[in-house]
């Protein structure tokens, strides 16, 4: 009786053996999250189309030969989904091991925190090829640390047609040598980059970092636990973008924008993202 729903927008699926009713236009990831089933992901983000790249969110769907990415696959009526089967867990473990043997994940706590659960053991790989490059510091606003880049597509999508439409960065090369790059790897200041910082905002591993944060980390003075975040409104035009001012020791150290706020969905322009420096200057002013 209860499953004879009249609501045409809803369907029933089996989630880890439990029958649940969900909206039919949801992805498996969304449907799971609505039913308190956590699925880990790196490349998914609320305001970007699923990149399908990290594959950490794969789940087992009865009838499918391979595992399916829960971030992009939509639920279907009667779908039998296992989010934690041994097969799923084995794949996730390998993906995490692959990343851990390739990248510097020291500033990606959300990934590292999964290691214990999935039994990640990187010692069983003998001298794996790692991505190791010098940090690119080409201006006073961003840095790029490719050793941290897991190629999640977020920055490229944010710079490209899904948000900024600047296309200053794209993927270059192929396979293991794939990299996020400007044309001919010219410096960002020479590229089409307009320094909106939206790429930095979406980076899950701190491969893209605000220079302010980088400098403070470099001086061992980046203290997230001592930071407060205040939401206010940018003053540089009349659009009304909300800014999250991250302050440490009464100085602004970073600016982000709330992704859930409809005006920006996390996006800002160069002025909003970086134009706050004068506030720190007047703070030093003794007037």
């Amino acid at each position, binding site marked *: 009786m209860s499953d004879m729903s009249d609501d045409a927008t809803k369907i029933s699926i089996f989630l880890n053996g439990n029958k649940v009713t969900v909206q039919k236009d949801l992805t498996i990831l969304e449907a799971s999250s609505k039913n308190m089933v956590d699925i880990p992901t790196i490349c998914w983000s609320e305001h970007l189309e699923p990149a399908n790249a990290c594959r950490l969110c794969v789940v087992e769907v009865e009838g499918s030969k*391979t595992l399916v*990415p829960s971030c992009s696959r939509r639920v279907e009526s009667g779908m039998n989904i296992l989010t934690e089967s041994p097969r799923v867990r*084995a794949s996730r473990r390998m993906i995490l091991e692959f990343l851990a043997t390739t990248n510097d994940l020291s500033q990606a706590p959300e990934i590292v925190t999964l290691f214990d659960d999935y039994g990640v053991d990187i010692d069983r*790989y003998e001298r794996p090829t790692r991505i190791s490059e010098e940090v690119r510091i080409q201006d006073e606003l961003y840095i790029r640390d490719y050793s941290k880049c897991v190629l999640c597509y977020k920055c490229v999508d944010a710079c490209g047609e899904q948000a900024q439409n600047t296309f*200053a960065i794209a993927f270059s090369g*192929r*396979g*293991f040598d794939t990299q996020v790059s400007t044309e001919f790897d010219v410096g960002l200041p020479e*590229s089409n980059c307009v320094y909106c910082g939206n790429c930095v905002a979406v980076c899950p591993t701190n491969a893209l970092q605000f220079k302010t944060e980088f400098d403070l980390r470099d001086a061992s003075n980046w203290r997230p636990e001592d930071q407060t975040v205040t939401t206010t409104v940018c003053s540089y035009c009349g659009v009304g973008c909300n800014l999250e001012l991250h302050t440490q020791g009464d100085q602004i150290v970073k600016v982000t924008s709330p992704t859930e706020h409809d005006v920006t969905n996390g996006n800002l322009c160069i002025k909003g993202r970086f134009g706050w420096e004068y506030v720190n200057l007047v703070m030093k002013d003794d007037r």
Partner: protein
Amino acid sequence: MTKPLTISPVATVAEVAAIDAAAKQAEVLIRSDRVVRGGLRRMQKSRAFLLPSLHALQKESGWISPGGVRYISELLQVSDAEIYGVATFYDLFQTERPISSDYLAHVCVDTSCSIRGSEMLLEDLEGSGQESERSACLGLCANAPAVFYQGKQCSDYAVGNGESGPSILTRSKGEQLLKRVGRVNPTSLDSYKSSGGYQALSIAIQIGSSAVIDLVSEAGLTGRGGAGFPTGAKWGAVAAESAEMKYFVANADESEPGTFKDRVIMESDPFALIESMTIGGVTVGAKVGWIYIRAEYPLAIQRVAAALDQARRANLLGENILGSDHSFDIEVRKGAGAYICGEETALFSSIEGYRGEPRSKPPYPTTRGLFGCPTVVNNPETLINVLQILSIGVPKYRSQGTPESPGTKLYCVSGDVHKPGLYEAEFGIQIDELINLAGGAVSATKAVLLGGAAGSLITPDYFDMPLSTEAAQSHGVSLGSGAVMVLGEQVNIMDVIIRVAEFFKNESCGQCVPCRIGTMRQHEQLLQIKKTKDSDKKKIQLLTEIGNVMSDASICGLGHTASTAIQSAIYNGLLGGSDE
């Protein structure tokens, strides 16, 4: 701090002319002093001219020069970074320095060529001062070792075993798909017609779309590219779509190591491909067809293009074909050196001017394919089967092969056999029979690599296995593209396996983690095993886990099959075994 006024690179006059010629139909911007017509829609549409523009630039300057990129960017309104990203995706575009001589030699180092001494050939060429690079399979496996000469301001050409031109065919009995190959003049429509060509199209137009689809379904035709999907179902699905635009694509990016059947069809019987595509287009309601041919097949590209011209002139393409209501025309798109572009959705990305990255399925091409429209993608071998079905009828067609795998199949036999070449045989022929057909093994055969790099190693114990879809399935293997590489006594299986792993490492598009890193780790592990001569349980266990995540969690078929050969070697005890 102010931004310095940087001087942007400028294209040469010759580069501009070459790019203009390649992208002459792309008019993204129409400028005048006071009005500029442009916009995202026009950009999107014109982006398909990116690959031809890059080819033109590469040909003219011997590399993808920054000035050329700047010019293409202005012309097509695609950002420099994206153009660079596309260019660096393909092996045949140089972005670091120009080819200094007239030609760059790409020497195949894949299985059949390597057992025929390609490494030595490479050394010789380099020793003689010829700029050379190691290359993946060039589809000249029966004429190994093969070289593809990429010309700067001169035409490309491919050479097998020191000879250019189509490989010499070895005839087999009961040929149907190959019946015109070597018998008709591939550059003459009349010659094709006089051997029965274009009768099938007449029949198709006469009996109509649904009847054609029924026949193709009843004949039990399945895709010959490797996946084996029922062709009738695919055509039926696209025919049922009501979209305004639909496409019909021939996937002639034949890049599976050891495979060269589509090349032979295109070089020797190009009208057959065009006729069968026309039937397909008319049947599913597509007005535009594309043939995506790998760049390493210059003769095939030339022959197909010439055949298209003739067909157009004879109203066998274009508006109101053969006086009917149907209109269909075909465009050729040349690949640029990327195995992954043989994956159907990667092929779409490539045609559209993006990096050849595969897309997540669903949606399937039949609903959202090329340019987002319903699309049929078929392999050339699959397509020419349709001619056969329409001319001889379903019962006769089904009388060949096995009940589950009706018809004949093309086999590319290479390696340690006396007469390597392309053979047509009914489904169900045994591996040992096929080896005999190819003149017999040169030496005691250690194994056969069936289905190319994505295929499996078969040991002699199983040479009585019939080559049919169902028999292969019951053995846990796949016929794949029909590549049969015979590995004789002298062949070091471990080296073959390592090369297969290296091939996938080189060809992975890099999009998803399991494949991008998995192919690297797989290759590393095998090198370790070879180096230490130690294939203990832990190492094998890790290899198996790497294989599992690639086949389970990768986006596309490349990742799914990147460990198949390696796993089959483990299964057959061929890995680091005592013979190494």
